[in-house]
């Protein structure tokens, strides 16, 4: 499971960085989204990977933390997803505005001279 997750994060980051460095605004925004997914998975993995473990401790008995999943990264990911979604939506609007003003989807607002 660790291997699958790390390969998944790696592929997402690699594609995200490549797209982020491309000259078209749409590629940049997709790159940022992919990087966002990778980072969310990464935060999740920092709470250690567990399957079939509840994040909420029940009862008042003495509990063994090893049997439970870490709830904090789950809460962090939730916050990060919401914030990432909002900022991406905002960026999308700016992208459209830039397209409208400059007539091109190049990130610098003009086509490079050939």
């Amino acid at each position: 499971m660790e291997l699958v997750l790390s390969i998944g994060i790696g592929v997402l980051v690699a594609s995200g960085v490549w797209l982020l460095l491309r000259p078209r605004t749409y590629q940049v925004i997709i790159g940022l989204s992919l990087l966002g997914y990778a980072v969310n998975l990464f935060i999740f993995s920092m709470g250690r990977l567990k399957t079939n473990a509840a994040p909420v401790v029940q009862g008042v008995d003495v509990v063994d933390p090893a049997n439970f999943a870490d709830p904090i990264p789950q809460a962090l990911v939730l916050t990060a997803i919401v914030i990432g979604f909002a900022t991406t939506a905002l960026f999308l609007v700016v992208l459209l505005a830039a397209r409208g003003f400059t007539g091109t989807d190049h990130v610098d607002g003009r086509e490079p001279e050939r």
Partner: protein
Amino acid sequence: MIPGPEHLVILPIVLPLLAGALLLFFNDQERVLKATVSIVTSIALLVISVMLIRVAHSDGTAENGRVVVYLLGNWPPPFAIVLVLDRLAAMMLLLTSVLAIPALIFSIGRWQKAGPHFHTLFLLLLMGLNGSFLTGDLFNLFVFFEVMLAASYGLVLHSSGPQRVRAGLHYIAINLAASLLFLIGVAMIYGVTGTLNMADLAVRIPRVSPESMMMLEAGAGILGIAFLIKAGMWPLAFWLPTTYTAAPAPVAAIMAIMSKVGVYVILRLSLLFFSEETVSAGFGTNALLLGGLATITFGAIGVLASQSLGRLAGFSVLVSSGTLLASLGLFEAGVTAGALLYLVSSTVAISAFFLLIELVERGQDQISNVLAVTVEAFGDEEVDEDFEEEVGVVIPGTLAILGISFGACALLLAGLPPLPGFVAKFVIIDAGMNPGGADGGSVISPSAWWLTAFLILSGLASLISMSRAGIRAFWAPVDAVVPRVLVTEILPIAALLVLTFAITVQAGPIMRFMQATADNLHDPRIYIESVIDAPRAVTPMRETTQ
């Protein structure tokens, strides 16, 4: 129940949030109401932060100051989110409100009409800034950073136009990427230590096993990159001058402190996590010093090469950031004290300069282009009429006032007496040359020599380019058009500059405060103990509800 003085700590966050949300209910045409509410809010913030600075500095034991901890949710620390007020946080709160009031008053003249929801965005920006200074939790810091950045995206794009949208596109892309780095760093630190509370982290980091130390340092490094992008360290700063130049003047004036938020966090976290007792004491200070010196060089070259006043101010932000980062890199309490004074004086100076530039350039016929674009983008006929009516009282001697203000800005940025830029640089150099107190004894480090040289040279570069720009703006034009300036636009600038003069007059007490702040930062035990031992509030309701 009457809230006690301890609840003052949360007001700098709640007040702008409520006021900003309230203003959303009103139509944008109700400008007088909106401007009044936001100015009253920021004056209230000023009063609150003065009260908080008195709490943090005067109360408690005289030597150590007092750290006020506010438990949100009343969980016993280190669980849940805490707000922490110490001298540094109180100082930054005060600085924020001092910059906010002039920027808001300035915006009454013109900018508040140039696009929708100016005051709401501005107040939310203040909330994000205040929250970043107050929070004692690493992830909560991320949330407040995002609040601040989201508001600043809106403000940079305020009144639109191709140039602004283009600069805003780069600004947003860079900051989204930086936020992702922030998250990666936070996650790595959490993965090693299992906590996000800053004080608890400071306790746990010395106990991290050597094999996990590499991961922790990598996390701290990545986190640091995210803040250095905000602070504008070379080579992460190419976005900064363009964005600041493109932003509307009152927005650029408050954004002068946004770059200092990055410096603030680095100052706070590096001294808390890697203080002198830990294994990796002074982690990253070399990088800060070298990066700071490179930033000063890049900024100084940029200042010399700038053709327009806007870019000159943008690169001055870089010189100021570089000076601060390099001073922090010396890892010396005395130097940090000087750097704190430099932070205050340079931020106020740059803020005033950004406001001033717009007025000076108004006489140079560049503003008409901007206006045309603004109206076209916003597409409101009524707005157009208002521009014509209100911007246009010629004050006698306007040019003289503008010229004097410009001269004061030049003195501040170049660090010449009698303004506090000189005092701050003098303290930094003095402390760097006398390591371990004035009685000498220890050897002056080579890095102190380097810092001294770079400080003096960057001051020279600022002076040269400011005099050149001043001559071009005020002396050279033969048929100079006197810019039409409102009283509400010149007064905020004058107030900021008079304030810097007051800092020089009161340099003694202020410097003692800065020294106490720096001592607290370099010996963070009182901060850590206050947070860990913070008493929970008594809840008399608990028994009855159960």
